[in-house]
């Protein structure tokens, strides 16, 4: 069965500092990988996705992620964090099932940004 691990439950960074959120996945075939962000009281917003091709993908809000098959990882990065980036970040792997599909999420990483 597929699974997603986000080893860091909580990360605190200073505004302007760089950020890397870790994600490891377990999936037998070529994975479909996603990062979602959840701001307080809000739903899940898609940051970026990887299906195939270039292993470095760009997303919204200045985020990027790199797919490394050898390490089964899909880490999220941002060169300079803004206070508004404080939120919970979820890594997910997608699976085609029947006539639709489903996402398996990690447990999330809560990002706190200090000024």
């Amino acid at each position: 069965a597929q699974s997603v691990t986000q080893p860091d439950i909580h990360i605190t960074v200073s505004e302007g500092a760089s950020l890397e959120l870790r994600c490891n996945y377990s999936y037998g075939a070529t994975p479909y990988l996603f990062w979602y962000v959840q701001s307080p009281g809000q739903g899940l917003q898609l940051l970026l996705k990887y299906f195939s091709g270039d292993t470095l993908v760009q997303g919204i809000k200045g985020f990027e992620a790199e797919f490394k098959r050898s390490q089964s990882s899909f880490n999220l990065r941002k060169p300079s964090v803004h206070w508004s980036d404080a939120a919970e970040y979820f890594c997910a792997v997608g699976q085609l099932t029947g006539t639709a599909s489903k996402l398996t999420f990690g447990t999330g990483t809560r990002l706190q940004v200090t000024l």
Partner: protein
Amino acid sequence: EPEVTQTPSHQVTQMGQEVILRCVPISNHLYFYWYRQILGQKVEFLVSFYNNEISEKSEIFDDQFSVERPDGSNFTLKIRSTKLEDSAMYFCASSEARAPNSPLHFGNGTRLTVT
């Protein structure tokens, strides 16, 4: 940008009562989903729905749960007899095509509190 809307944002109910959570997916989307997130835990898949029938359901989605698309715009999740452990944030999502080629768009969620 079109969005998925969910109502109500917060629902409080007594154990044993029936609740209906409502969702209006994005208008041209064909695939519909419900996920839930128990406080402090990961987002979990409940059910996917396509062509007016359930495509897949998880172990969580037992006989107490049902989904319906009563008209051309709404997508509902019904819990027949709520239990305390049903307290969670419930997210509706939709996608244009069979994901993961077409990423899921999530609503802001309905927080269900069962007392």
